[in-house]
């Protein structure tokens, strides 16, 4: 996200960034607490890994990654997502963005690792790699069989391995338990990961030990308020990287020694352990 000439910079100065009215075309129930909202109108400048600021009018505005070029997949976790779940097809929301850098899309042999709702941005990424007929392997982690997301979608375009915390499907335990000899029978040109903080920290350490960090890209989540890289609520230590604009996608090496998986900040800016 940037502009390279003075002319581009001048043009950017006149551009308004206000919520755009977007009609919900279709709502798909993924499981009890997760739904995908498809948009009527195409958004500009979409890319896997980018996110939008979703304004539920009268409630609040929250950042959500794209799960398709024209959709977001949302987990019901609080007041704003609860209100979003009450909307029906034909209702509209306000959308600012897409914002953020998006994934660096490259390589022939691709490994995707997603935990929980973190699998959502990887689906859009897999679709883009799938169109290019790349060799994709996907590891999906979930709490249980009921909460597992996008198994069918990934099976269409990739080899899929599953783990569940309760062992109700696939391997028991976290996605880390799947990173065994079988997965690494082949070499990967690029590895993409998104999921809970603890999982990301474990993956950072794991790939660091394997000396593969330069082949890893991570999608991070923090409290994003402005989305434009100026308020500072999403900055991560120790480099002060802005998740909303320098990210949300970072190469492993950029964040190995960061706060990721150790602590994050709440809405007030106070640190809390993860």
């Amino acid at each position: 996200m940037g502009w390279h000439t003075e002319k581009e910079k001048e043009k950017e100065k006149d551009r308004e960034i206000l919520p755009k009215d977007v009609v919900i075309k279709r709502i798909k129930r993924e499981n009890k607490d997760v739904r995908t909202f498809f948009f009527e109108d195409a958004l500009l400048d979409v890319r896997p890994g980018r996110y939008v600021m979703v304004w539920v009018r009268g409630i609040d505005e929250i950042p959500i990654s794209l799960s398709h070029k024209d959709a977001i997949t949302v987990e019901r976790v609080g007041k704003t997502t609860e209100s979003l779940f009450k909307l029906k097809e034909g209702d509209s929301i306000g959308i600012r963005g897409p914002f953020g850098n998006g994934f660096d899309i490259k390589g022939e042999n691709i490994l995707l690792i997603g935990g929980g709702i973190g699998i959502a941005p990887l689906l859009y990424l897999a679709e883009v790699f799938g169109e290019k007929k790349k060799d994709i392997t996907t590891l999906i982690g979930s709490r249980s069989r009921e909460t597992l997301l996008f198994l069918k979608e990934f099976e269409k375009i990739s080899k899929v391995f599953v783990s569940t915390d309760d062992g109700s499907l696939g391997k028991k335990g976290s996605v880390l338990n799947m990173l065994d000899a079988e997965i690494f029978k082949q070499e990967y040109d690029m590895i993409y990961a998104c999921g809970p903080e603890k999982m990301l920290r474990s993956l950072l350490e794991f790939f660091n030990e394997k000396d593969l960090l330069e082949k890893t890209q991570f999608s991070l989540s923090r409290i994003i308020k402005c989305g434009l890289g100026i308020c500072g609520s999403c900055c991560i230590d120790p480099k002060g990287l802005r998740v909303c604009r320098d990210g949300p996608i970072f190469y492993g090496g950029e964040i190995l020694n960061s706060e990721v998986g150790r602590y994050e900040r709440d809405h007030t800016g106070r640190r809390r352990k993860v």
Partner: protein
Amino acid sequence: MGIKISGIELENPLILASGILGSTGSSLNRIARTGAGAVVSKSIGMESREGYEGPVLLKVDCGFLNALGLPNPSYKNFIEELEDFDRYCPLIISVFGSSSSEFVEVAEDLEDYADAFELNLSCPHVEGYGMEIGRDLTFVEDITREFKRSISRPTWVKLTPNVGEITEIGLAAEKGGADAVVAINTVKGLRIDVESGYPLLGNVYGGLSGRCIKPIGLAAVYSLYKKLKIPIIGVGGIEDYRDVLEYLMAGARCIEIGSALYYDLEIFKEIDSDLKRHLEENSLEMEDIIGLAHRKRKRKRKR
């Protein structure tokens, strides 16, 4: 091009404005390394605040409209961020409160970390704070006086432009013992979503910043310079070195930059070198420029 203001030596007159990338020690370190002469923290208060519901920031055609709502972790929890700040340049801590005792209580615990304090008497969108007290001459004078009595660091008072006569507020701050005034904070504004009729900001009202407010900031600085003896820090819509020159000529001794960091995170380095080059090429010193517009006017009047 070093400059001294309220007893602090700055390597250049360009300061990071409050509210921009100033809520963590590491982001302040990052901006310090881009060449800022000093950095101002996010406004810190007695109790933690989550801030307003979104949207909290809109980019409008001529600038930005924000209503973050003074989110901060409280002064007690801000100390761990201050511990991370590595003092690459001076740090000014912005403080907000609803009474002089609140301002003092917050600052007492942060004094060791601050090269100066900036009293936020000007945030335009939080009830009971900022502009609501910053519009009242007696409050401004009393809060400044009480603050100076208890806190030994230089004290800057940030003024709201949302008043009839900003110079009266500036004079009240000066009477209270302020070491400098900062002008201006954002201008009260509002936008509406025409599809739905909802106000676009979660808080309805917000503060307008960016290049559209530059003439308002310049007018404030120019009129304050005529009335005040203490130095003025100019802020509002500065995007390049020519904007800085305008503020200096209007009477500012230093300037703050906020919104323009959206366009370029490296803006301090750029403006600093442009400004140095300009002064060199024209064989000028900072002191020749500061308040120049006033001296030109005087000469004209004498004729």
